[in-house]
């Protein structure tokens, strides 16, 4: 029997705001535990939440970047449940009126573009962080409690684990470029849960699904889903019946582990949040939000090819992250030739960053310095060999390339092939001079050397040039 896999994904992304969703506590990853809380996010009696305007705008921005319809009017709802990470005993979320709905993103899978539909994007608040420190108790840090989140629910459109990862990669890229979230899975600002089921080909009804939670990297999304896909198929082939359950992926065991068996629909008793009034998103507000969306990766890739003359491959490489794309663009803006700027950015610069804790924003080889270095190479001031030395000095010590080259005397052209070429070129262009030189009149040597020095802006290595001059002259005698 052949099976078809069906996957749907829920993503939670923390919004890039300064403060929490309903109070003025700072939203800060890694702060000392329980130092970013107040009576509002701790759910004390009598407090009132107040909506963070920026969070609404970022959620709308996300909905727009994901090609959703944006609601004209929306509201918040209470989702009631008891859990120690949620001190109010309810989460403020959105139930029947999400901020965005009916969207999609296009992602590439095996060289082909596939459209994945997005059911809804809604705004809600995050829970605190629990750590299970003992057998009988846990500890809670409420710094994250009340941080603004968007939940993005896809339609069950993915047909393989690979497609699920392609969707997630594209989604992450869009959220990052739109400036909605910093999408760091390792810091929990991007989290995803996947629903997977398997059905015989041609069957319309979905199979029984299982939910994979706490997937902390795209690599684990792939491995976890592949494991589940295989488990579902084998069970069905053996005539078994799938149970609806929630699992997590165990990295060390490389398998999924049961967390709980789902018993019917959860009863969250949603109702409209009485502490908050409705949100009306009028045309002017929506337009202002749309106008503030930074250029998305697709548009950048087109522009790199059409106006900067780069290949589709280069354009794709450069737009892997917004930081990289912006670094590249700043380098070009500082006067660098685009192709050279692209090669350095995706090559040596990225290579350096992979080995260090620096980023494109903190790197000592700033776009201006890279542009200067590229100019030194393009202008023949330094050879590609010397460039490596200049690159190392700039990226490690933050030197100014031109100044450094001058101070270190690196500007000399010691490239034998280049200098020999210049000598030959000069000989060919001046047959009368060559005749005099061959005839033994050495005073014309000064003319030839002078011309080459002029051409190299005085940077040719004089000793080498002298040697090459004589070697080439001997050949003509």
């Amino acid at each position: 029997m052949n099976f078809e896999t069906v996957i749907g994904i829920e993503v939670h992304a923390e919004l890039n705001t300064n403060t929490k969703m309903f109070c003025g506590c700072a939203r800060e990853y890694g702060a000392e535990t329980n130092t970013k809380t107040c009576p509002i996010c701790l759910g004390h009696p009598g407090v009132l939440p107040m909506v963070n305007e920026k969070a609404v705008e970022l959620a709308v921005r996300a909905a727009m970047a994901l090609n959703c319809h944006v609601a004209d009017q929306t509201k918040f709802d209470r989702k009631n449940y008891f859990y120690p990470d949620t001190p109010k005993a309810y989460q403020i979320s959105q139930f029947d009126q999400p901020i965005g709905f009916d969207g999609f993103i296009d992602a590439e899978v095996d060289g082909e573009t596939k459209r994945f539909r997005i059911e809804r994007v809604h705004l809600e608040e995050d829970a605190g962080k629990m750590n299970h420190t003992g057998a009988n108790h846990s500890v809670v840090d409420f710094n994250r409690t009340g941080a603004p989140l968007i939940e993005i629910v896809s339609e069950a459109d993915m047909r393989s684990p690979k497609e699920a990862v392609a969707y997630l990669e594209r989604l992450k890229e869009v959220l990052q470029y739109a400036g909605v979230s910093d999408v760091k899975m390792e810091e929990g600002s991007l989290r995803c849960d996947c629903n997977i089921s398997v059905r015989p080909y041609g069957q319309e009804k979905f199979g029984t699904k299982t939910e994979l939670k706490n997937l902390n990297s795209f690599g684990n999304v792939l491995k976890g889903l592949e494991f589940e896909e295989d488990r579902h198929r084998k069970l069905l082939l053996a005539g078994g019946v799938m149970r609806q359950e929630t699992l997590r992926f165990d990295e060390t065991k490389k398998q999924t582990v049961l967390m709980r068996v789902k018993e019917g629909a959860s009863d969250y008793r949603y109702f409209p949040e009485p502490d908050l009034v409705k949100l009306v998103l009028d045309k002017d507000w929506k337009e202002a939000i749309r106008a503030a969306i930074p250029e998305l990766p697709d548009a950048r890739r087109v522009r790199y090819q059409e106006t900067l003359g780069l290949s589709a491959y280069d354009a794709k490489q450069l737009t892997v992250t917004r930081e990289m794309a912006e670094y590249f663009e700043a380098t070009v803006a500082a006067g660098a030739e685009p192709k050279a700027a692209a090669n350095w950015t995706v090559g040596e610069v990225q290579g350096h960053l992979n080995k260090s804790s620096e980023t494109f924003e903190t790197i000592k080889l700033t776009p201006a310095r890279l542009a200067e270095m590229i100019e030194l190479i393009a202008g023949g001031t330094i050879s590609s060999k010397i460039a490596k030395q200049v690159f190392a000095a700039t990226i490690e010590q933050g030197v100014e390339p031109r100044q450094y080259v001058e101070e270190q005397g690196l500007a000399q052209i010691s490239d034998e092939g280049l200098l020999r070429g210049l000598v030959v070129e000069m000989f060919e262009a001046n047959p009368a001079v060559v005749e005099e030189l061959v005839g033994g009149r050495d005073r014309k040597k000064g003319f030839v050397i002078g011309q080459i020095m002029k051409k190299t802006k005085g940077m040719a290595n004089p000793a080498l040039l002298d040697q090459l001059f004589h070697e080439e002259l001997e050949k003509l005698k």
Partner: protein
Amino acid sequence: MANINEEQVRHVAHLARLAVTDEEVQQFTVQLEKILGFAEQLNELDTTGVEPTTHVLDLKNVLRKDEVRPSLPRTEVERLAPDWEDGQVRVPAVFE
């Protein structure tokens, strides 16, 4: 007339994590039925053509600027917490 049975009362009590005695279940079943019956009087009104509302106040877009305000000192959070361990609030383990 609203119809509430004991099973529903037990379910709601469970969701609210309330321990109720059999006696209380009987008592609440009667009371809840009366309360719902009272609220049901509203159904006598003809609301044809009236837009549903989600809030009693006809206000919209009450928003706050994204500006950081001081949080509570941690010592205060510790004082308010029922139990505390190394800068974190200690809670009973939750088994799912």
